[in-house]
């Protein structure tokens, strides 16, 4: 719901919101596209931010491919539903055997896909009917969604310090750099820290 509403609130059409959910199908990346464009960023910054967030799905694919062992069209479908949730549930079934892993992946991936798309449509249509988005709190729904997405990743002190530093850095750079760039720049902070640590 929140994504469809956020997309429309940031100027995307209902069709574009639904296409993002069908084709991109990765919550954080989708919110990033509408967030960056909504903040006045260029389409290139929006695509870059969303794609940097999407790189983790490639690594999930690497982990899932030998476990699923599928080819052709089935691999295309498997790739499309390779997200945080499906990979997480699948790996949570490891001790129960390979069939449980496969089942966990497919049920979660397809289940989330169906509901995510239905709710996107509902949210987009709802937001379209609203008018002033601030009156419905939609301007706060997007940052709250980002916060909800990052929260489970803040597992230790190091992660929390990185999160706060990147937040402060992005705010400090916002008046100086073109919209979108302060966000992308934090990915490079993460890469540099990851290389050194």
């Amino acid at each position: 719901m929140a994504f469809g509403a956020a997309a429309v609130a940031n100027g995307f059409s209902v069709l574009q919101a639904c296409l993002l959910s069908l084709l991109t199908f990765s919550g954080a990346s989708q919110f990033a596209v509408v967030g960056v464009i909504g903040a006045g960023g260029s389409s290139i910054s929006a695509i870059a931010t969303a794609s940097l967030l999407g790189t983790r799905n490639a690594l999930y694919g690497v982990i899932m491919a030998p476990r699923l062992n599928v080819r052709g069209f089935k691999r295309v479908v498997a790739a499309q539903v390779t997200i945080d949730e499906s990979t997480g549930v699948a790996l949570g079934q490891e001790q129960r055997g390979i069939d449980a892993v496969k089942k966990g992946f497919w049920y979660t991936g397809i289940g989330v896909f169906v509901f995510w798309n239905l709710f996107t449509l509902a949210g987009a249509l709802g937001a379209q009917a609203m008018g002033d988005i601030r009156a419905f709190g939609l301007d706060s729904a997007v940052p709250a969604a980002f916060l909800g997405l990052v929260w489970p990743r803040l597992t230790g002190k190091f992660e929390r310090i990185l999160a706060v530093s990147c937040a402060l850095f992005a705010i400090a750079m916002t008046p100086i750099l073109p919209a979108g760039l302060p966000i992308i720049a934090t990915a490079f902070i993460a890469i540099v820290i990851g290389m050194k640590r």
Partner: protein
Amino acid sequence: MSAFWIATIGTSVIAFVLKYSGHSVPERWLSHPKIQRINALIPIALLSALVAVQSFSEKSQLMIDQRLVGLSVAMIALFLKAPFPLVVLSAAVSSAAVYHWL
């Protein structure tokens, strides 16, 4: 073509290419510990930056408004281990309430 369409299509194409390439490259290519570590850090950096920019700016200007309340309520909800939809909903409701009130 508008920026909205470029962003929609560009993001979708790259998102799928990333997902599919993960399923197709040999495992050893991406299993290096440094890549794993960077992969865990990138979402933390980008999502934190997005929280901040979306909460405290409008275009390129910094500002504090009802979104600060929404964000604070979302944080409390997360501390109380609320599920994701409730986190978003509580932020929206509290922010809307403050917006009407001010």
